[in-house]
């Protein structure tokens, strides 16, 4: 496929924003359950929620550039029964609203105790956070399923697509949370950095699994099934026109195999190798600079990763557009 930058920015930005919220909420749950004794301050939650919301808004803005008719975008909520894109369009504002509420409750300090179970005090923000967490996971699934549900794009048609959207979004969000902690509350760095490393390793395993799977795929559609002629040697001589069309522009990246391999190596270094080293350094000797490098490297790497993800999708319609004569 031809990667569209609007969609690359949309998926990476909202993935990071959702991951950042998951990081904030994980910290809160760990504290409430007394797993850790480091409590995040309301300022930390507020900054974190604002940053998360900001990323989601940027993602939404990027998505508008993908539409031919953005003024009709509201119509996209109509077909939620059948379309994962429609579901995403509904869940994205819901997540934004819930994260706004979550940040607001922390910012205003509305620590209403809703329920007490033994020593565990469940307050309002914890409840809102729970609902927001469910919404965040629904959004990850909807975003991943937009691509995973297209069965003839075999590279995308796999549960690994959804898993990778979740893991890569989460790890980028947790890394950003570590950076925010370094600015605001350095005592939280080990907690977030530790989680980031765990997620980084998981993401590496699953993204690697997806790369291996896609390398071994054999296309189900061939020129024989495409035109229905049973012969081993069929060549297209003319696609029917000599200029370009949407069919020749939108479905192929137009880059060399070498370029593709370079992007793959680049994202493996930027998403996994550099942030891993930086996070380990940050665990030993925390510094804002080190974590800023980790976060920036990871985000740039995710742009490359998403570009590669789209470029790797091999659309069967390309069989019909091979030769000009």
């Amino acid at each position, binding site marked *: *496929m031809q990667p569209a930058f609007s969609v690359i920015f949309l998926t990476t930005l909202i993935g990071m924003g959702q991951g950042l919220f998951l990081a904030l909420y994980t910290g809160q749950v760990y504290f409430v359950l007394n797993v850790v004794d480091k409590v995040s301050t309301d300022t930390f939650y507020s900054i974190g929620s604002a940053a998360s919301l900001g990323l989601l808004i940027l993602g939404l803005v990027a998505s508008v550039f*993908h*539409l*031919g*008719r*953005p003024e*009709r*975008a509201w*119509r*996209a*909520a*109509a*077909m939620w029964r*059948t*379309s*994962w*894109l*429609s579901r995403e*369009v509904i869940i994205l504002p819901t997540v934004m609203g819930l994260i706004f509420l979550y940040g607001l409750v922390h910012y205003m300090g509305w620590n209403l105790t809703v329920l007490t179970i033994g020593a565990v005090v469940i307050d309002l923000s914890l409840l809102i956070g729970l609902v927001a967490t469910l919404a965040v996971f629904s959004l990850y699934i909807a975003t991943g399923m*937009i691509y995973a*549900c*297209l*069965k*003839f*794009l075999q590279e995308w048609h796999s549960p690994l697509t959804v898993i990778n959207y979740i893991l890569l979004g989460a790890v980028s969000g947790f890394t950003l949370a570590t950076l925010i902690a370094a600015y605001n509350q350095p005592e939280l760095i080990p907690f977030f950095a530790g989680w980031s490393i765990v997620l980084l390793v998981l993401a590496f395993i699953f993204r690697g699994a997806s790369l291996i799977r896609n390398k071994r795929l054999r296309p*189900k*559609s061939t*020129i024989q*099934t*495409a*035109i*229905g*002629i049973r*012969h081993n*040697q*069929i*060549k*297209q*001589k*003319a*696609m*029917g*026109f*000599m*200029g*370009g*069309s*949407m*069919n020749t522009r*939108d*479905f192929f990246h137009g880059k060399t195999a070498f370029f593709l391999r370079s992007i793959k190596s680049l994202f493996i270094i930027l998403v996994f190798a550099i942030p891993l080293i930086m996070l380990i350094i940050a665990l030993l000797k925390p510094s804002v600079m080190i974590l800023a490098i980790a976060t920036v490297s990871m985000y740039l790497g995710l742009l490359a990763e998403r570009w590669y993800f789209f470029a790797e999708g091999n*659309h*069967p*319609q*390309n069989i*019909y*557009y091979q030769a000009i*004569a």
Partner: protein
Amino acid sequence: MTQLALVIDLNVCVGCHACVTNCKEWNTSGSAGALSDDNPYGKDPTGTFFNRVQTYEVGQFPKTETVHFPKSCLHCEDPPCVPVCPTGASYKREEDGIVLVDYDKCIGCRYCSWACPYGAREIDEHQKVMKKCTLCVDRIYDENLPEAERQPACVLACPTTARVFGDVHDPDSEVSVAIREQGGYQLMPEWGTKPSNHYLPRRKNHVSYKKDELERVDNPLKKEDYQVDASEPSLDDVTSW
């Protein structure tokens, strides 16, 4: 239930592109607005088309055959492009099975074109909405036209009658009979889209004769001297005198 569709006979298509031209002409002149064309005579011509004729070479020289292959929307019975549409602009009509786009609802997100394995959908770069073959829905029900002309523009243009239009759910229609009796098939059956448009394969009429059909074994009047040994009496000689 009706399912309108085209049956395209690859055996008689000569690749003249008349269907492409007439399709473009009819659909760029309709009430839905022009089908865009940029730099039609310039360096990088591009535009929106609903129908294309492609050419394939089958086999290796000198044993080759040239196959001209017209391709437009196949109006699948289970169209993968319809459920993915977030706005409901893409739909399949209940009454005749035509897959259409409501240009007033389409947001131009291109998701349906990703979901079509055949590459049948093209965005209009000026109206910024997705377009595709409508089976000339604005012709086939037009009662102002003579009945013989209530057919898609591509069908009317075809000089060799390689394109036949009709209801593939009616077992007695011309298209159903052609599919049934002439080996009609669907494109990319592996995805379960069940295209309504069918293609008729290249066919060659080989007549095979056996030797005894060319040479007469019996020769009652002994007019031709086919017999290997005419001096020996045959059974015919015995019965005919």
